[in-house]
Structures are given as C-alpha cells and as structure tokens.
C-alpha cells in the first residue's frame, strides 16, 4: 500500500505546473485503477486539498462534487475516514464552513460542550457554547 500526499493530487489537477510530474501521477493512478498497486491516503490529506482549493477561490460546488465523485470514486484508492469526511463535505456550504465543520465533528466525537475561541463564526453551530477567555 502506498500513501499519497496532497501535492500528488495537486499535480494531477493542474497539469501545466509540471508536465512531467503530472504524467507520472496520471500513470500512478492508472496503475492503481488496473489493480497493480493499492493507493491509500487520509482524511487529513483530502481536507488539506479541499482547504487549499477553497483558499485559491475555486468554486465550492465544484470542489464538493470533485471530492465526492472523483476522489472517493477512484478505483484503487482508499481514503481513511472517508465516511466521516463525506458527511462533512456534504454539510459545508463554503470552504470556511468546511474547516469549522471538521473541528466541530471532532468536538462532537469527543462530546465537548464548551470551547474557547474568539471566532464568532462558531456561534451559529449548536451543541456547544463558545467562551472567550
């Protein structure tokens, strides 16, 4: 099993950045699709990919659709924490929501009721109370 880092996906998505690296990444995914190798990545790599694309102002709907259909639909690629990540991606309405929701899902999993933060954005979410030190 081979771990994939975020930059592998970015070199796939943006061919013009480095044509050679892009071609090599395509060949890697083709090998995986044919069952010659097994690729594996984590929810954090996909989260970083989503966050980066959002940061570069790419369309959120397109990012959502790409992750749910393209990344998760890739033959020979296993994503750890996929189900959890799918739910967060579906819930988020914009990239900044996505980052907050990742934290909120973790908080909910740990049954945290209070958080310290100066970010008023958290006030719209239920299930815990935001406090300021």
């Amino acid at each position, binding site marked *: 099993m081979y771990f994939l880092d975020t930059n592998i996906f970015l070199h796939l998505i943006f061919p013009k950045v480095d044509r050679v690296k892009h071609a090599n990444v395509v060949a890697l995914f083709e090998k995986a699709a044919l069952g010659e190798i097994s690729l594996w990545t984590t929810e954090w790599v996909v989260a970083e990919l989503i966050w980066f694309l959002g940061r570069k102002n790419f369309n959120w709907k397109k990012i959502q659709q790409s992750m749910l259909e*393209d990344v998760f*639909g890739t033959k020979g690629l296993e994503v750890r924490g996929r189900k959890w990540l799918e739910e967060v991606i579906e819930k988020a309405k914009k990239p900044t929501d996505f980052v907050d929701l990742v934290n909120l899902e973790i908080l909910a999993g740990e049954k945290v009721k209070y958080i310290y933060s100066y970010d008023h954005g958290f006030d719209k979410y239920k299930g815990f109370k935001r406090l300021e030190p």
Partner: protein
Amino acid sequence: MSYLVTVTSKRQITLPKELMDVLGVEKGDKLIARKHGKKIAIEAKGKGVLNMIGKFGDLHVPKGKTIDDLVNEAVLESTKNVFP
C-alpha cells in the same frame, strides 16, 4: 494508452476493459465523442480522480517555487490574522 478497436456494421465499437477501468467508466455511462480533424476523441464522464485534470483551470506557480511552497504559503497567509 492506444487501442485498436473495430467499428461494427451498426457503427458500434467495444471499449477495452483496461481503458474503462482506468477512466472509471461503467456500463450505461454516457461518453462524449468529438471530432478533432481526422481524429475522434471520446471523453469519459466516469468516476475517478482522472476526471479532475484541468477541472479547476490553471494554478500559477511562480518560477523557482513548488506546489508545496504554495500550500505552505497559503497556510502562513491564513494564520496572519491570528499570529500577525
């Protein structure tokens, strides 16, 4: 990847399984066939990460920098308000 395929009397062709696997194309999927001069390009709309190629347009990477540099710079940029 190149394959030799045969056109039947009903103008149908069979796609090699390997090609379908790589592109994530399944039975019943729709494909787009386009004419490019003397060539026919068949565009797959199957599932899979290869569909993401070019989907987001271009990413400008300044000379001498890598994609990882851009990711790291974006992280630093996003924390500017927190750690000015």
